């Protein structure tokens, strides 16, 4: 302990000496450098915002001319004809993403509840779960696709919605777990203690007090993870394959928006690219719609609750 404070002391003295050294070199130079750094930082922000602006501009400019009722509801026409639409892709994305959420939300939320409410702080199992959930969120999505292919596609014998939903759930579960855990930890202990003192059993406290208080945080997390998996492409290549037909069965292939965009981008026809922009616009509307809608809703709720109190 004392050696640690000694080290901190030394560090402190070192830092102090650094500062004194700087102080002694009095000049305007440091003020200019300070300004220069600020300008550089602003420059970095601008560099990061340009692509977002350009992507939104191009997607809406090129996409809006492709969009029509026919485009949104028809099956794709023959390759290169420029006819038809992306109906099956929209339908497929909705089906696969909902199915993945149905698998992932309960598992993720329960795991998050365990980590926040039941695991003691020095529990090795909880540490492993938390740590590997974080590691899993960093794994490439294409790996998840390979895993689903080997586990589900090969055993069922065909590319299927189930395999696609399974692969997306693998991406979603760790995200939901961690966000649920973080939201539940924000609930003040006094609420738990109050419920305890009234004699409620722990599972009731957890669900009706803690989870209920943290609902908006948990739902935010779930919606953000849905937005994230809706744009995933790589795992879908080896699970749902993509087709130009509407949904037929849960064990058959379907189409999805990101997959359709990828296939269209690889075709050498102008008309296919135009359709690609249209599909990209629908996808981005879906994802940014979820993001921005959520933002507006939570802000409104915050204002409402702050008025209440």
């Amino acid at each position, binding site marked *: 302990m004392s050696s640690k404070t000694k080290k901190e002391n030394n560090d402190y003295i070192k*830092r102090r000496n650094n*500062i*004194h050294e*700087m*102080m002694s070199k009095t000049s305007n130079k*440091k003020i200019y*450098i300070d300004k220069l*750094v*600020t300008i550089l*930082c602003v420059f*970095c*922000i601008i560099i*990061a915002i340009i*692509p*977002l602006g350009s*992507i939104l501009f191009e997607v809406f400019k090129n996409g809006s001319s492709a969009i029509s009722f026919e485009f949104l509801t028809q099956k794709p026409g023959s390759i290169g004809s420029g006819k038809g639409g992306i109906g099956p892709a929209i339908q497929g994305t909705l089906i696969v993403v909902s199915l993945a959420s149905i698998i992932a939300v309960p*598992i*993720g939320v*329960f*795991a998050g509840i*365990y980590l926040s409410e*039941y695991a003691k702080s020095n529990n090795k199992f*909880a540490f492993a779960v938390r740590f590997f*959930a974080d*590691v*899993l969120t*960093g*794994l*490439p*999505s*294409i*790996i998840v696709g*390979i895993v689903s292919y*080997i*586990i589900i596609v090969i055993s069922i014998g065909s590319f299927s919605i189930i395999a696609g939903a399974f692969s997306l759930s*693998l991406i979603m*579960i*760790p995200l939901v777990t961690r966000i649920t855990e973080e939201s539940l*930890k924000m609930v003040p202990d006094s609420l738990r203690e109050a419920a*305890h*003192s009234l004699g*409620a*059993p*722990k*599972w009731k406290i957890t669900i009706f007090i803690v989870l209920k208080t943290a609902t908006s945080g948990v739902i935010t997390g779930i919606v953000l993870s849905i*937005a994230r998996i809706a*744009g995933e*492409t*790589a795992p879908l*290549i080896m699970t749902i394959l993509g087709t130009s037909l509407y949904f037929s069965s849960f064990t058959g292939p379907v189409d999805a928006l*990101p997959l359709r965009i*990828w296939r269209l*981008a690889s075709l050498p026809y102008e008309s296919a690219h135009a359709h690609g*922009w249209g599909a*990209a616009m629908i*996808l*981005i509307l879906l*994802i*940014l719609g979820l*993001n921005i809608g959520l933002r507006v809703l939570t802000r409104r709720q915050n204002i409402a609750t702050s008025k209440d109190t």
Partner: protein
Amino acid sequence: MKKHNDNQSLIPLTKISKFDPIFKFILIGAAAYTLLMLALILFAVGEGSKEIFQNEGFNFLTNTDWNAVPGRESFGALPYIIGTLVSSGIAMAIGVPISLGIAIFLSEIASTKLKTSLSYIIELLAAVPSIIYGFWALFVFRFWIVDFVEEPLHNLFSDSLPFFAKTPFGIDVFTAGIILAIMIIPIISSIIRELLLVVPNSQREAAYSLGATRWEAIKIAVLPYAKSGILGATILGLGRAIGETMLVTLIIGNATGLNAIPTSLFSQSQTLSSLIANEFNEAASELHLSALIGLGAVLLLLTMVINVVARLLVYKMVKTSNPGGRI
């Protein structure tokens, strides 16, 4: 909660519900599923790549051929490992300084109002799917890069420096690196920003009280404090860049075999993940499929190591900074 149990003999307030152990069991099951997922991933990738490693042994990692024609099959992962490292290296070289600048601006310089709206924009940038980055890169950004960066560099340096030797037309390892950088900037910068917010204000105040300018305070008091966390965030970004698939398949040129080893910034290449995405559905034989999964195994190993190291670094930073916290 624990405290209460200790006192139970004195004040038996809590009813022992029969559902409590069942509930706990369900929760533990859900938590255990995370570990099961990991086991499943390791098992499936190991099982799928067994054939190629049995066939080629460790030569698979050093060979440069890629021939899927039945009867003359030969598979080597080296060019794609190099392609992956080069494209993510370019992404890191461009992305990390910019991310650091953004994080510093958002946590230290910007006013509160600007801070919230800018952070939100950066979040939106992270929400755009990579396939859309790829699509935009292929049909829009590629031409900017050729006109404003690659052509001038090529004209100036093509004779003296081999990096700029090939005639640029935008579908190359350089463009892929830049788009990867654009994609990882929001990820890295939002982690670093959060870490900088954890740095206690006493650090900054101490520096200011000694007369440091804002930049000096950042340099001597804030950044050193967050050092290990920043390193962790950088490595996490590297993991993302290495594993990114869709935008790379669209923009890197998809060369195979020896051609995939980039000889200049403007040569076409291929990464581990992009080759898997391109050939998985057209695999000509069991061995070809196994070779692709073998590439996946290499990728899994790389990103696993990277993520474990990075997470440990970030945990360390967060833990030491709030010892009483529940993180």
